[in-house]
């Protein structure tokens, strides 16, 4: 990055999401890196956990931000930028899962699942790694709708109204999805840990 671009990015980092998007809507993509830096972590982690596939999450993240630029005029200031970006991400992920469903099992196996980050992170304790593995497996037991709802609620801290907007359903439906997801997670985590005690106590 040149010095002038770095300065420009630093100055832009003080602008609000709405102000940055206003610049983008005017055809100037220079805030792209600032918006990316602001939201890529959340977008990537959501996609990674939703899809359970690092490569697909990479493609999703890149596509989401490209779409953000291409369809900037569809963003209206009345919604949060994060909600809009999560809407694009969730759509991409749902579309991806639908296509994966339509393909044969053989094709699904083609996708490379990277080792979970914990596998190569020596600083995490055995207990943390074990809990991470259990949580991953428990999340896999959820339906796509439930996983989407719990990921947005638990890990992204979005309100049910925002999740409803992203998922294209009512707040009541979100409430039901999160509740059912929690019920399943409780059962799976208890069962996975050989009676549940070890796993549940480990978190206390």
């Amino acid at each position, binding site marked *: 990055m040149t010095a002038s671009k770095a300065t420009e990015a630093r100055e832009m980092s003080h602008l609000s999401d709405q102000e940055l998007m206003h610049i983008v809507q005017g055809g100037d993509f220079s805030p792209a890196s600032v918006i990316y830096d602001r939201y890529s972590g959340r977008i990537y982690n959501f996609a990674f956990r939703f899809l359970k596939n690092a490569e697909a999450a990479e493609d999703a993240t890149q596509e989401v931000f490209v779409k953000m630029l291409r369809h900037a005029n569809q963003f209206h200031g009345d919604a949060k930028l994060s909600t809009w970006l999560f809407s694009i991400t969730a759509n991409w992920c749902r579309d991806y899962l639908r296509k994966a469903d339509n393909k044969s099992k053989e094709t699904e196996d083609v996708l490379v699942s*990277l080792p979970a980050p914990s596998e190569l992170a020596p600083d995490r304790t055995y207990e943390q790694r074990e809990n991470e593995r259990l949580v991953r497996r428990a999340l896999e037991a959820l339906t796509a709708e439930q996983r989407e709802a719990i990921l947005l609620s638990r890990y992204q801290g979005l309100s049910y109204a925002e999740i409803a907007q992203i998922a294209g359903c009512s707040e009541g439906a979100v409430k039901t999805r999160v509740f059912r997801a929690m019920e399943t997670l409780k059962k799976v985590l208890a069962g996975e840990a050989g009676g549940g005690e070890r796993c549940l106590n480990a978190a206390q």
Partner: protein
Amino acid sequence: MSECSAMKESMPLLLTESLDPARREQSHQHIEACAACSEAWLSYQQTWVILGDLPEVEVPPRIREAFLSKAGIAQAKNENVIAFRRKPVFKWLAQAAAIAVIAGGGYFAGHTRAPRIESSPATIDGVALARQGDFRPISLVETRQLDANALSPEIEGRPNITNVQFVDSDASDDQIGVSFDITSRWTVTGNPRERSMIRLLSYMLENEAAVSPRSNALEWVRQTYSDPANADPEIANALARVLRNDTHEGVRIRAVETLTTLPPAVASDTRDALINALKNDPNPAVRLKAVEALANMARSGSAIDPALIDTLRQKASQDDENLYVRVKAAEVLSSMNP
């Protein structure tokens, strides 16, 4: 719905402190008074906490680079459009001609057979002609120059048109031009042993931009070229380049797996690529895959040579190497008993 059932449904909202103060207070009072709900609430809290054990994953920097590169291209696209100097007399003609040219581009993308244009050196008929013996190789990359009246005004296939430039080389004549890049879809069929097919697949392995299709291409290559009848060192070399150069560790892991399925006829190419990955790949998961693959090859007796033994010895004793890789290298050496 009983009060307890309603309470349980609201527990996730209670966890996120999303209930209004009055309902929150009411809920806590109920939970304190009700043993079943109290137990359920504790269980909810524990589950919620455990979910936090899923660590945040770091975003690979390559995504940022790829995105900004794309954003840069998008900007460049706008800058590339040269303002067309309008000639009022020919304004209507300019608009009509431009529409005709772009529409014609659509016709190209929407049809599997391109119209025969005298000034164009290539047509998509080339594939069929090659099969019939009237061989006229065509290039996938070409520049066409066409007259507007040679193109159909019908737009089909929703072509993606980019990098538009208006060209008016001679302002005194009544001719204008428009240049653009347009995507078209190609299907190339042929025997897996045909050189063109091998080159095409090799190129795709190294140049497909998105990760998932690259991974799919590797799987396709594995299925096709694990057959001894299709053994080809060029495929092994392409995989070796993917293993050496691909920025995505998942793809490199897949490249190792694909290399190990190649027939013994290309074993030396495979072994060299794996040794190189074991020595130089920055990712321990890839190095581990490589050493495992070499172990399998060594067990089958096809890969033992001094270079391999040296590399394994070096890895087994390398202090700053990943522990798993060191142990695996030592295991392989032990099993080989050199």
